[in-house]
């Protein structure tokens, strides 16, 4: 399982070869599909009671959101590709900035899988299936990264 260490202002995430390959594959699919209609689940309705305002909001924000989501995915892919090889897989060093790139991307990946798994409520059980396993793993990875980032990131505004 993934191991995470804190070193000064950095966190070090160690992924097995399988985890590294899995994440890279998920991100490749994500980048290819994020601007299509298939991933509408990533773009919530900002005006549920006002279809006109909802459409206008989507028109003004969608392409920018797609661009930034794509850019964030690109940063995560780059971080994955430039990690250090270690006997058990790959070690990736990240700073507080990862909160604004890795965390939204892990959230989106989990959102897509949750949609496929039919998870609609807080207490919905997760299928014991390959997709369910990946969903659970991503959740644990995100939770543990958040815990580590919390110790190096908080107080830094993104502006």
């Amino acid at each position, binding site marked *: 399982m993934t191991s995470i260490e804190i070193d000064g202002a950095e966190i070090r995430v160690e992924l097995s070869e399988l985890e590294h390959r899995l994440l890279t594959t998920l991100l490749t699919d994500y980048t290819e599909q994020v601007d299509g209609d298939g991933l509408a689940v990533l*773009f919530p309705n900002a005006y549920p009671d006002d279809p006109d305002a909802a459409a206008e*909001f989507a028109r003004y924000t969608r392409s920018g959101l797609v661009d930034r989501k794509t850019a964030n995915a690109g940063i995560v892919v780059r971080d994955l590709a430039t990690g250090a090889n270690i006997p058990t897989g790959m070690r990736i060093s990240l700073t507080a900035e990862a909160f604004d790139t890795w965390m939204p991307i892990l959230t989106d990946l989990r959102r897509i899988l949750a949609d496929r798994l039919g998870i609609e409520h807080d207490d919905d059980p997760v299928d014991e299936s390959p997709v369910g396993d990946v969903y659970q793993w991503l959740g644990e990875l995100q939770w543990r990264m958040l815990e580590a980032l919390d110790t190096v990131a*908080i107080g830094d505004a993104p502006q």
Partner: protein
Amino acid sequence: MRIDSRSPYSTGAVSTDTVSSDTDIDLSHRVTVELDATWTTTVWNDPVNLMTYVTQVFRRYFGHSAEEAERLMLLVHNEGRAVVATGPREEMERHTEAMHEYGLWATVTRADS
């Protein structure tokens, strides 16, 4: 929160010989202020986001203290939603877009609706 605190009424006294034109300006300001003040950004509970993530987004994006961020997150979790900002519509849309970028479910609402 990020409510623009500049007041259109604080620009000085109105002299009697310019009352009519200044009244016009004041009226337009009053209309603007009313529109500006009546919008909110609401974040909704969803089955995917981790509580600790929502808290950290509130801290990082809105610059809230840990306590305030936690309070808002618990509102989202327990009540199903929380108003996280109030102010001009454009600003509320910008916050909503930012929440969508972080992967949170957010909506824009008229505060009085």
